[in-house]
């Protein structure tokens, strides 16, 4: 089918969604899903054929001719928008229904379709001005989605922080696009690698899109926004919206000349985000905040791949650069899938128990076995365990990095360090997700709410099943996804045509199903064996302790304690200890809290200082005429001295 027609259907579906969202839920659902489906078909056509769709009608918006383009890079991200967006749309039908949230649900539906439409436009627009318009619409629509539950003051604060940070980024983008337009004489976006004088602009790209992507250091808005938004919104924000920042970085690193230092910076900030993101995740006790920090980590892994791709390009067109880049690109999809799965799972937990606090949960598998199982699958995938999708993209990044080491250039030593840190990131993520699964879903319920948790409805389970299925599919048959990845890489850098699938990926396509089938068969056989022997139940033995209680279980904080102690230098946890006193202590307790260290030690002081300077400046403005006259006279005298001084000299 014609790509243009499909994209028109996408726009029409989403517009129907915006118009119908307020009153007609069914029409909204149908329109949004049809739109998402059309976008999926359009994107897969582009990814399978590699053909670029280009549309330049004769009309203009804002005195700029409309120019839409869908190439494989854009299609790669459009696919993610449509798949995750579609799944979360169905989920939100039950999760944030008009019955439960009469005040916010109708508006929420409109903004939901608006955010999907504007993200689609971001990847389609090939005109700088329209790109900015779409980008800004997307940012504002996302703000209204984040603050759907705005009776809660924490949510309002999170939304405000998001809006401020987002506009800080947009400011950089204004600088970027206006400078581009001034230098090239047109707002048209496209390949500008020839203009080497534009290279410094790439730093603006990094700053502007980096805020949205949640690079460590610019991620300050991300944890609170993801934690306080409704879960289907968190899934979309984490799975897709931050990928728009990645889209910007990938897109403009293909279009603009990239300075070598910036290529290195992308790789290094990627490594830093990966390690520090997961370390901060370990320190969290709020389920969704923890997942949010894992987004920082995974964005880091993506940028690791993209960064080494850029470094490879700067070192002459290297094979390892392509592999790392392809790994980074594939991780965009993978993270989008498993992170939205995890957020939807967290949403079901929140829905069932009413708390995000992990220390109030536990033993949820009994009440909600589907959610527990699907969340576990997502946890294994995000920890990069074979045979799931997270391993596949990390595998490609590893292949690229080790080849870079064996190329013996100046890249070898940094690549070595990156390999080691990537492995440690994987192990840390595993530790963190063992903790989450164990504390939330296993053991005994730690509160009344957790005791009475119930499974979510089929409309919430279905989307999770879909996402989990896709995670498994990419994991079991990774070689199928090589051709779209390489199409997107070629669209990014046309000189890279025709890269065959690495042998390792083909081998994984055999090894993963074998391991998966063996594991399933093994599990089935052992269950048979256990059932035949008439397995009996008894209280947890635990070396013979007679009266175990739910509150004696290991907590999330203790579980992560060893690792968080290693990283105390960056976490700077606050610890309030009330030690037991005397022979019969009445009360004792420990409260530990990981602050938003970057926000509180870097951004807040800087903002406070700015405000103080502003207050100082304001004290000159007090409304006394005499003083104003004095300023004028003083100013005139200074001016006179400045002008006369050189002449007199």
């Amino acid at each position, binding site marked *: 089918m014609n790509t243009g027609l499909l994209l028109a259907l996408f726009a029409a579906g989403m517009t129907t969604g915006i118009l119908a969202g307020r009153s007609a839920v069914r029409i909204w659902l149908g329109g949004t899903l049809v739109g998402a489906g059309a976008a999926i078909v359009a994107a897969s056509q582009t990814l399978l054929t590699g053909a670029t769709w280009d549309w330049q009608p004769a009309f203009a918006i804002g005195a700029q001719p409309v120019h839409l383009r869908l190439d494989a890079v854009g299609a790669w991200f459009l696919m993610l928008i449509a798949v995750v967006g579609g799944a979360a749309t169905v989920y939100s039908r039950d999760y944030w229904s008009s019955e439960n949230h009469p005040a916010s649900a109708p508006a929420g539906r409109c903004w939901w379709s608006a955010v999907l439409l504007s993200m689609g436009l971001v990847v389609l627009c090939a005109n700088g001005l329209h790109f900015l318009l779409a980008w800004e619409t997307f940012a504002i629509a996302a703000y209204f989605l984040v603050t759907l539950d705005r009776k809660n003051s924490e949510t309002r604060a999170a939304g405000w922080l998001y809006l401020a940070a987002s506009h800080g980024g947009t400011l950089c983008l204004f600088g970027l696009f206006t400078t581009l337009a001034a230098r090239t004489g047109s707002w048209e976006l496209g390949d500008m690698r020839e203009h080497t004088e534009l290279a410094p602009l790439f730093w603006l790209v990094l700053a502007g899109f980096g805020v949205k992507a949640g690079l460590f250091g610019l991620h300050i808005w991300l944890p609170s926004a993801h934690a306080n938004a409704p879960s289907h919104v968190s899934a979309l924000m984490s799975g897709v919206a931050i990928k728009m920042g990645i889209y910007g970085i990938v897109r403009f690193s293909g279009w603009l000349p990239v300075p*070598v230092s910036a290529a290195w910076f992308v790789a290094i900030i990627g490594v830093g985000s990966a390690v520090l993101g997961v370390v901060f995740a370990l320190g969290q006790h709020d389920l969704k905040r923890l997942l949010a920090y894992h987004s920082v980590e995974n964005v880091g892994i993506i940028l690791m791949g993209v960064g080494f791709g850029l470094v490879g390009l700067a*070192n*002459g*067109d*290297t094979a*390892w650069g392509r592999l790392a880049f392809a790994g980074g690109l594939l991780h965009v999809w993978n993270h989008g899938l498993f992170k939205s799965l995890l957020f939807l799972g967290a949403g079901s937990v929140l829905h069932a128990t009413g708390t995000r606090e992990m220390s109030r949960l*536990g*033993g949820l*598998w009994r009440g909600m*076995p589907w959610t527990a199982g699907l969340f576990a699958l997502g946890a*294994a995938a995000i920890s990069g*365990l*074979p045979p799931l999708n997270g391993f596949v993209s990390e*595998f490609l990044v*590893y*292949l690229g990095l*080790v080849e870079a*080491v*064996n*190329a*013996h*250039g*100046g*890249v070898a*030593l940094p690549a070595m360090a990156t390999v*080691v840190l990537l*492995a440690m990131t*994987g*192990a*840390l993520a*595993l*530790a963190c997700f*063992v903790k989450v699964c*164990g*504390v939330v879903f*296993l*053991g005994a319920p730690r509160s009344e709410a957790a005791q009475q948790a119930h499974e979510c409805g089929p409309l919430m389970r279905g989307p999770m099943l879909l996402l989990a299925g896709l995670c498994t599919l990419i994991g079991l048959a990774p070689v199928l996804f090589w051709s779209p990845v390489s199409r997107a890489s070629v669209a990014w850098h046309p000189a890279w045509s025709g890269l065959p699938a690495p*042998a*390792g990926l083909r*081998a994984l396509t055999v090894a993963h199903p074998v*391991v998966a089938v063996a*594991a399933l068969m093994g*599990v089935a*056989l*052992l269950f048979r064996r*256990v059932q035949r*022997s*008439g*397995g009996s*139940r008894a209280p*947890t*033995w*635990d*070396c013979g302790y007679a009266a*175990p209680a739910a509150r004696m*279980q*290991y907590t999330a904080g*203790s579980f*992560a304690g*060893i690792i968080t102690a290693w990283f105390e230098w960056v976490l700077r946890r606050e610890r309030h200890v009330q030690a037991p006193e005397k022979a019969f202590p009445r009360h004792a307790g420990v409260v530990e809290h990981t602050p938003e260290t970057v926000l509180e030690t870097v951004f807040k002081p800087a903002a406070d200082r700015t405000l103080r300077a502003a207050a100082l400046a304001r004290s000159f403005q007090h409304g006394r005429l005499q003083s104003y006259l004095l300023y004028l006279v003083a100013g005139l005298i200074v001016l006179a001295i400045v002008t006369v001084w050189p002449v007199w000299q």
Partner: protein
Amino acid sequence: MTCLIETLLRLAAWLVVAPLLPGIINKVKAWVAGRKGPPVLQLYYDLARLWRKGVVQSTLASPGFIAGPVVGWIALLAAALLLPLGRHAVAPSFQGDVILLVYLLAVARFATAWAALETGSAFEGMGAAREVSFAVLAEAAVITAVLALAVQSDSLSLPAMLAPAGGTGALLLAAGLFIVLLAENCRVPFDDPNTHLELTMIHEVMVLDHSGPPLALILHGAAIKLLLFSVLLVEAVLPVGDLPALAGTGALVAGVLVVMVGVGLTESLLARAAFRQVPLMLTTAFLLCLFALLVAWRGAASPLPERPPPTVRLPGETTS
């Protein structure tokens, strides 16, 4: 077809030989202490006995409590099958199979720790927390060792990496891998496999509540893991893959025996280290592997006449 038969034979070898290793270690320990010690085949008897027994599960446990041990066992077995055994028993290898091996070990860790948390016991939670935390450092050491092997063989597939003799840094690598072996298999000085109950710290804690066939799988998996690490260590140092078939197998067996004796002697002569020293020892292992890597890298980077120029991948000027 031959490939399939060969793989099945290797599978059988791993399954049958692995439980021998703890028996050898125990014999060495008994010999040092002047005791007679349990029979070498003790673990086989234990496994058979456990397999016949029934299963008692915690009332809190979900089906994951049973699934965890199997998944961990399969993952360890799959990882073991990726390792070549000498010259002819070369696994179906590919570029990057070593990464899969490292991550399959992670799968086993995930499954074991998951099953431990099923019981809701604080003690087993501690064990799981320690296991996954120390694994961060152990994984850094392992991946550094892998990098060292990859650099000195210019390949990322296990048969090519492990076939030649260890380079100049072989001793460093062996020391580093030996420490990792002790840590990952919960031997003294990291953990004491003898103190089956309260005094144990990491691995045995996690499996306290398991019984019957699942416990048999856990014990067998632990034996496979021990064999896997010793084979990896021996093949990283000795040119097992470059020797003729018989000599290679002999060297492998002798090497594994030496490693087991080493473990037994370490266990007899050292006490378990204080808990807070564990990260320090693992960091030492990491540093040893790192030095091995740097030595390998220096060796590979220095201009060797017979080596194809490494700049093949770097046409044009390098800008950095």
